């Protein structure tokens, strides 16, 4: 099932100012990201050695959700995707530790760990999961 990712259009627009080559690279990495995100209901970008990523995976599995996990340190285009994510999230540093994990639900960006936690506490996470078909009942 493919998920809608039209909200990304605005992101793409704002990143064009980087210059020709970079813009092109940004485009391709964003496209790659898009395709990955559209594949599953819940997509988590993580690093295999990161403990916070382990925590977020545990959170979703504990809720009965089976997310699609992409370990960027083991992924062939991991660096690209990470850069694209950072641009998407608006982080300043290229290798900011707070960047990962990043969670997408139903093709839409939820955010890093603090956003995921906040949405779970305020009760918005479960409806989102249900809408995306990741959670039944």
């Amino acid at each position, binding site marked *: 099932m493919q998920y809608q990712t039209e909200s990304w259009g605005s992101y793409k627009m704002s990143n064009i100012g980087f210059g020709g080559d970079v813009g092109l690279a940004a485009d391709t990495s964003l496209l790659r990201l898009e395709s990955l995100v559209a594949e599953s209901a819940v997509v988590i970008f993580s690093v295999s050695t990161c*403990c916070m990523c382990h925590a977020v995976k545990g959170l979703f599995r504990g809720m009965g959700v089976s997310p699609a996990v992409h370990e960027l340190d083991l992924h062939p285009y991991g660096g690209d995707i990470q850069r694209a994510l950072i641009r998407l999230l608006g982080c300043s540093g290229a290798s900011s*530790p707070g960047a990962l994990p990043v969670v997408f639900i139903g093709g839409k960006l939820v955010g890093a760990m603090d956003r995921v936690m*906040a949405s779970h506490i305020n009760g918005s996470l479960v409806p989102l999961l249900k809408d995306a078909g990741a959670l039944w009942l």
Partner: protein
Amino acid sequence: MDNHRVIREMDNHRVISEATNHNDNHHLSYSLLHGLSNNPPPPGFINQDGSSCFDYGELEEAMVLQGVNSSSHEAKPRLFAGGGATTLEMFPSWPIRTHKSLPTESSKSGGESSDSESANFSGKAESQLPESPMSSKQNHHLMLQHHHSNNMANSTSASGLPSTSRTLAPPKASEDKRKATTSGKLLDAKTLRRLAQNREAARKSRLRKKAYVQQLESSRIKLSQLEQELQRARSQGMFMGGCGPPGPNITSGAAMFDMEYGRWLEDENRHMSEIRTGLQAHLSDNDLRLIVDGYIAHFDEVFRLKAVAAKADVFHLIIGTWMSPAERCFIWMAGFRPSDFIKILVSQMDLLTEQQLMGIYSLQHSSQQAEEALSQGLEQLQQSLIDTLAASQVIDGMQQMAVALGKVSNLEGFIRQADNLRQQTVHQLRRILTVRQAARCFLVIGEYYGRLRALSSLWLSRPRETLISDETSCQTTTDLQMVQSSRNQFSNF
């Protein structure tokens, strides 16, 4: 040989006589001290190492052998309270030489015990020893020197001694006469038995005195240590709730946080009373809303403080010395468990609509899931650290440490997420409940933690036995308690 022992004995008995209520020894020793100090014995007789003590019994033997009538104790003080002439008569073979001067310090082990002791001392001395010749300062100093060499204790000043010595006026005429009449030896079975008993008593007194002095020394050291810690804590800002004083290696960030958390606790009490009076006064919803929003802002403030502290010294937050012991008992990731808030509430909240009840229970559920996820993450961190540090084959120690440091740096992220969880829980509660309900809810939670902190204080100051006997058991006592039990120790003697 007897002579230096005389001096030693006088020290001993003046010190412990009050404690043992041994009136005979007391009077005699005081007067002996005065009498002999008038005519200082040769330096060789002064025992500088203070290790050997002599028998009072032997002293009495000596006096008996000199022909003293030992049946009346009244006679004894007068005999020896004389001036130089009387003492010369007693020990005729000794040349009179000035005693080697020791640094004069007003210190005696007995004097530091309590002022009441010296008061008793002066009272007894005054009433029954009016003829003491002690008026010269030199004698006073000699006595103190004897004490110094005897006990090697540098403690509080003996305020009682100087006052007593000056109050006694010395008429000498009657003593000389009485002294002159005694000659020849008097020894009978009763006397011998009494001498033996006195020896025994003297020995026991000596042992008691030794033990007492040792206890005093150790208590003094402990007290000075505690005072130092207290001083340090006060300079860094003392916190409430019965928290212990900070250790020696506290970082500046940690000290800063402790101080600011102390202030936050004061604010907390203020907010609590504000909410309480607001509810009791049945304020309007709008007024109450202001109070409740103010309380939530106050809560946001502590999370901000913790975020700063986590950057500076995350271990200090995790270990939680800034919390009261009872709170620390239930610590989770440098703070309270968000699901605990719900636990506290559930028993107290009533009059909730169905929707509200659903909201509370789902909040409890989601907070528990989030806590579980973070705990798992932290476990993974520990496992990762074990893998790094517990490697048997260490090729490059520095590399290993660098990797480990990198992993430890993740702790700050976990504490931040835990605080974020707490903050979100508080905000969600505010959203679910009405203003009045929220006010009551925060009051319940605030009072619970306040009582938990009070419980910690009570626990720490609960009545215990003597300070020394508790050395073997572990203890984290407050300063006040230590000082109180130390004071009890002194009064027991």
